[in-house]
């Protein structure tokens, strides 16, 4: 059904730390790897070995420059579905293929029912949906629904592929509807925020801003100089004395 379900207590989503993200593309790559065989498989690639290669990815890592001069920062910025609470990508769907799970808020596409009209991708403000032009149906981030509840893989592995791939732990997965969860506490502590809040889609995923740079020390320590007695080599000790005269 493409009417939105009543808000669920459980709101599964990601928290992405823009302070630590190094833009290595590991999350994007592992997302592609897992999902090419997972719930939304296959993920097509066209002309993969020649110029003009393109394909469907659920996660795209941009890099931005923000601010000017000394205050300027380079920020790496992964972009995937935010599993919004009130997204139009669900309500515009004419077939019921695009839906939000009532139990945990994950936004999914039923590839069996999708007609590939593309309207949901027009309605997503964040560019999180890409049409699979091979199968003629819409594809998007599944929040790795086939990992996080998967009893056949070891418990520590029941995390989204992008989260476990991140070498600097810039991605966190959890229940953002529970104020006591680790992710909710992280968001509270670091001032996590919504992307494009003016759109009114109420994203579940949160982004943690780059940390403030520490203010420069007004009394920088004087440069430590080796004393002459510390120089072991006799020749250099003599040179030091000669030059210091």
């Amino acid at each position, binding site marked *: 059904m493409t009417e939105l379900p009543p808000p669920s207590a459980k709101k599964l989503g990601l928290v992405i730390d823009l302070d630590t993200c190094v833009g290595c593309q590991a999350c994007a790559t592992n997302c592609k790897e897992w999902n090419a065989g997972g719930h939304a498989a296959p993920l097509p690639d066209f002309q993969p070995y020649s110029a003009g290669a393109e394909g469907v990815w659920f996660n795209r890592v941009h890099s*931005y420059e923000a601010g000017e001069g000394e205050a300027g920062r380079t920020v790496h910025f992964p972009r995937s579905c935010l599993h919004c609470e009130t997204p139009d990508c669900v309500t515009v769907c004419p077939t019921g293929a695009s839906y939000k799970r009532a139990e945990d808020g994950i936004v999914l596409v039923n590839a069996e029912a999708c007609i590939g009209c593309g309207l949901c991708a027009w309605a997503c403000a964040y560019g999180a949906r890409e049409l699979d032009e091979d199968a003629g149906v819409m594809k998007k981030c599944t929040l790795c629904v086939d990992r996080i509840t998967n009893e056949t893989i070891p418990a520590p592995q029941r995390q989204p592929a992008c989260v476990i791939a991140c070498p600097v732990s810039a991605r966190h997965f959890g229940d953002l509807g529970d104020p006591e969860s680790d992710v909710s506490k992280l968001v509270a502590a670091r001032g996590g925020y919504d992307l494009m809040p003016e759109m009114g889609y109420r994203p579940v995923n949160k982004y943690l801003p780059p940390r403030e740079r520490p203010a420069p020390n007004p009394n920088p320590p004087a440069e430590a100089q080796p004393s002459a007695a510390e120089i072991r080599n006799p020749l250099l000790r003599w040179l030091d004395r000669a030059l210091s005269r």
Partner: protein
Amino acid sequence: MNPAPSIVFFTTASGAGYGLLFWLGLLRPLRMAPHAPEFGLLALAVALVLIVAGLASSLLHLGRPERAWRALSQWRSSWLSREGVAAIATFVPAGLFGLGLLTGWDGLAVPAGLLAALGAAATVWCTGMIYASLKPIRQWHHPLVAPGYMVFAGFSGAALLAALGALAGRATVPALLAIGLGLAALVLKRRYWAAIDAKPPRGTPTIESATGLGRIGRTRPLDPPHTEQNWLLREMGFRIARKHRDRLRGLALGGFGGAALLALLALPLGGPLAALLLAAGALLALGGLLVERWLMFAEATHTVTLFYTGEA
């Protein structure tokens, strides 16, 4: 937004078809269009051909056309679904209208024609709302978009009915409607263009709000996430050069104004000359609308391009 030919053609053709159906169903009982059943059947056939051609072309746009029937299920939330339901529902009174005309029984033709007119108006309104309801595309999420679809459908439908009516020697009321609606289309489109050209209001998304990096300062893209194209950029990153835009806008307005002018010239005339002028006017109206519709896509920008280029 990518001006896919199938959608540009669909919305223009089906709009004109529904406009023609609307005016035929409404004006015939009022005796403001030729009353002969043969004429009614001819006009109805033209309307249905345009509608069906448009719908078929929109099916071509789907990734999985064979599943199109599924689109009828979500009318409670989706304007696209409502459009599908309204379009199919309109075929019922339109068919009965044809039956009434065929049998010469006005007791059927009149109410069925009026119902078909209602269905036509509802369908076009749904088409307009599909676009007008999309928040990420500010040029579409505008109060003039859905009324525009109604005016353009009414205009092209009236121009077609005038051209057909002239063959039967009665075109005055449709020609007057075509003049009035042509001018309305002109004014509406000029106001719309002025509105979307103006500086976007405060609260319009920017790269700073899209990334949240505005807290640090002015934000600009440094490295793209991919060096080749993707579907998103092909579908939503379409840009049109300003010089082409201005020329095409002129062409569209010229089509509207030209159609109105030809209808005005045809009014005092009659006979074959009027029919010729009105036929040319209908073609101008449709040509202008094709250009208008192409522009409506080409000029629209999507918030996803904020992430890629910093602009939308």
